[in-house]
């Protein structure tokens, strides 16, 4: 350690400040945060170390740190922080920084990082879909006959399939890079690899599906409720969409389904859960800023898109049932714009936390990092420190 060279990236502090971590410089390294955090492990407590890495501009450390993603932003650290340094918000900002940094192509990361590009982000799907409508002549006259959204599908499919392939490629590159970074900076301990990769994935899936660690939040426990509802609402809708997509394109099933169809029921329940979860999140982020902390642009963009998908999806269905064709089609149009934004910007928006967090948890299991639990009392520390 005698000759450790610290490579400091001076722009990092500015970036993290911009991305929601403005309080970072107030930290004076007392480590209250690491101790009050119910998620922080005994061997690698966080977020104290992340705070000083961020202050010192240690970009490499931050980008390769799985602990950044083991934080659920409970806010217990911010509540007890004696300096108002709000470690929970800084950790969120570091994650935003990671989205931007792991973005492929780079300009997409930039486009998603600031509200000034927001019109552009929405203009892309709006223009694409208007071109489609124009192509099939639907702009001049509302299609006659029963309201059927499938009439656009052949065109929309091209857009969504293309985008999905690109997105998967971008996500794959980002996540692979992230894994390599984590592995490069890890001083592989004895437990490394003793949990096999598949077992690690299963363990991580169990943690994510049960929200086991998320439940340990205290100051901001309502966050768990919101996330849990939105998460399962989203999964239900994802399953329903997949069934409908495959059912329609492969098996030519009859659409729209009746309300009694179990798939439809699941879809409606999912939409309700998503809307409720997002509402809880919006309430928490607006009415309880003391506990929830300030929300960043990344938080609002992602939450806004998700919420809008839920609301426009549900309203499209209701309008269709009411039989107002023009309104139903335009509602579906708006719905698809938000769906496009969710999918196309997946790797660069907060949506990507789904993957980075999962991968970080897998890595933590794989490399044998400890769970947050009380360890036995260690021997007297060897280091006799100098103040």
């Amino acid at each position, binding site marked *: 350690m005698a000759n450790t060279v610290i490579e400091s990236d001076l722009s990092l502090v500015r970036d993290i400040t911009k991305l929601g971590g403005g309080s970072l410089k107030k930290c004076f390294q*007392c480590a209250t945060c690491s*101790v*009050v955090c119910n998620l922080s492990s005994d061997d690698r407590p966080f977020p104290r170390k992340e705070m000083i890495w961020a202050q010192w501009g240690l970009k490499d450390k931050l980008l390769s740190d799985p602990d950044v993603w083991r934080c659920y932003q409970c806010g217990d650290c911010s509540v*007890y922080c*004696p*300096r108002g340094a709000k470690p929970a918000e800084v950790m969120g900002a570091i994650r935003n920084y990671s989205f931007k940094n792991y973005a492929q192509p780079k300009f997409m990361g930039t486009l998603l990082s600031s509200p000034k590009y927001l019109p552009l982000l929405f203009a892309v799907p709006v223009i694409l879909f208007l071109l489609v409508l124009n192509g099939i002549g639907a702009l001049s006259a509302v299609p006659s006959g029963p309201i059927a959204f499938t009439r656009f599908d052949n065109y929309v499919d091209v857009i969504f399939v293309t985008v999905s392939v690109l997105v998967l490629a971008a996500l794959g590159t980002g996540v692979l890079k992230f894994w390599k970074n984590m592995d490069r900076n890890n001083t592989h301990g004895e437990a490394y690899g003793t949990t096999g990769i598949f077992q690690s994935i299963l363990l991580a899936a169990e943690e994510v599906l049960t929200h086991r660690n998320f439940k340990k939040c205290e100051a901001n426990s309502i966050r768990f409720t919101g996330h849990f509802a939105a998460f399962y609402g989203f999964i239900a809708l994802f399953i329903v969409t997949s069934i409908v997509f495959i059912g329609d394109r492969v098996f030519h099933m009859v659409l729209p389904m009746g309300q009694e169809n179990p798939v439809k029921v699941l879809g409606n329940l999912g939409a309700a859960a998503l809307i409720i979860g997002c509402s809880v999140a919006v309430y928490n982020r607006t009415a309880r800023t003391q506990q929830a902390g300030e929300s960043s642009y990344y938080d609002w963009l992602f939450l806004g898109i998700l919420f809008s998908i839920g609301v426009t999806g549900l309203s499209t269905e209701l309008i269709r049932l009411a039989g107002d064709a023009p309104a139903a089609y335009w509602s579906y149009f708006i719905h698809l714009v938000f769906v496009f934004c969710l999918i196309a910007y997946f790797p660069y928006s907060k949506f990507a936390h789904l993957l980075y967090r999962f991968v970080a948890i897998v890595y933590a299991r794989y490399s044998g990092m400890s769970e947050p639990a009380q360890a036995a009392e260690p021997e007297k*520390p060897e*280091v006799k420190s100098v103040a």
Partner: protein
Amino acid sequence: MAMTNDNKSVCVIGGGISGMTTAIEAAEIGYEVYLIEQSPSLGGRVAQLNQYFPKLCPPQCGIEINYKRIRINPKVRYFTLAEVERVSGEPGNFTVTLRLNPKYVNEKCTACNKCVEVCPVERSSSFNYGMSQTKAIYLPHEMAFPMKYVIDGTVCQKDQCAKCVAACPYGAIDLSMQPKKLDINVNSVVLATGWSPYDAAKIDNLKYGIYKNIIRNVEMERLAAPNGPTHGKIVRPSDNKEIKKIAFVQCAGSRDENHLAYCSSICCLASMKQATYVRSQYPDADIYIFYIDIRATGRFEDFFTKVQADNKITFIKGKVAKVLEDSQTNDITVVAEDILSGKKIYTTVDMAVLATGMVPNGLTAAMPSDIVYDEFGFAVSDLQTPGIYATGCAKKPADVAGCIQDATGTALRAIQTRVGV
């Protein structure tokens, strides 16, 4: 009743080490001094200490000489159990309105203790921070000045009981005493109102008041003091067990926006001093001091170096932010991140001592409104309020030596106040 202004007079509010010092210094150069103390004895927080740092001498050294200087100097008139109700006027001509609370014991008291033997009522000892009981009639403490008993009027049954009246051979007890008002006229006023320890129960994660074996530094002083509740033997509260392992939790509520945002400047030294108490009583005890930064400035660094060299005393950089209690043994486990190793450590000890900070004792209601206090309640500026001077811990957290220096300087300022100055 009113006392007249002879144009060379000072009123000192607060009879702790700072107030006594200012009073004596002003009196010894010929000024009339009124020294006002709200508790039944002069001496203040310093009288509650076991030892001073860094020389580790007892508070008798310093306090007794001041008591003597006051006793032999007719220029100092002191009022104990007295409260200041109002200060008004201008430089050279202040009126201080006092409320003299009844002691129920007059000047004839010889401190023979006969009253205490018959008194049936007990009260919690504020001098020992509630760690012991006294009778309703009691001597404030062994070194009390004046050396007179007083009755706690809030618990005494008065005429219902009156056993002490019968027991007193000197006719010193008068249960019919009433509060008195007194106006004094002075040239200048000195605020030496001192400090109180922070209410550690507000630091919810440190469990003071919930876990028995978590005490504050001020209570540790009483435990170690020969005139304290354990006669100087440091034992833990839950079972009076001797100490094998002890943790000092620095910055308990200090340098913390949620509690006291400032550093009280003395707690690091106080904990190191208390570590030496433990060390001398229990040479084999393991002592842990958890800190954010050790603040031992100037000559205090020598003391720090000495304590640090002790192989039974371990300094750990990392604030204790969680404590656990073993429900069987009442042992305390303090949790911190050892910043130098980057790992959390759980240290189980017999007792943990919270290094709590100083809260200024306010006297805001009674004072002229133009006195400026900072956001924490310390009097910031005497420049804007000519004729009124703050000293000692009313102004900023300080150690005893610092207070004495400051109080001496304040005496010099106070005696220069004249009408129109």
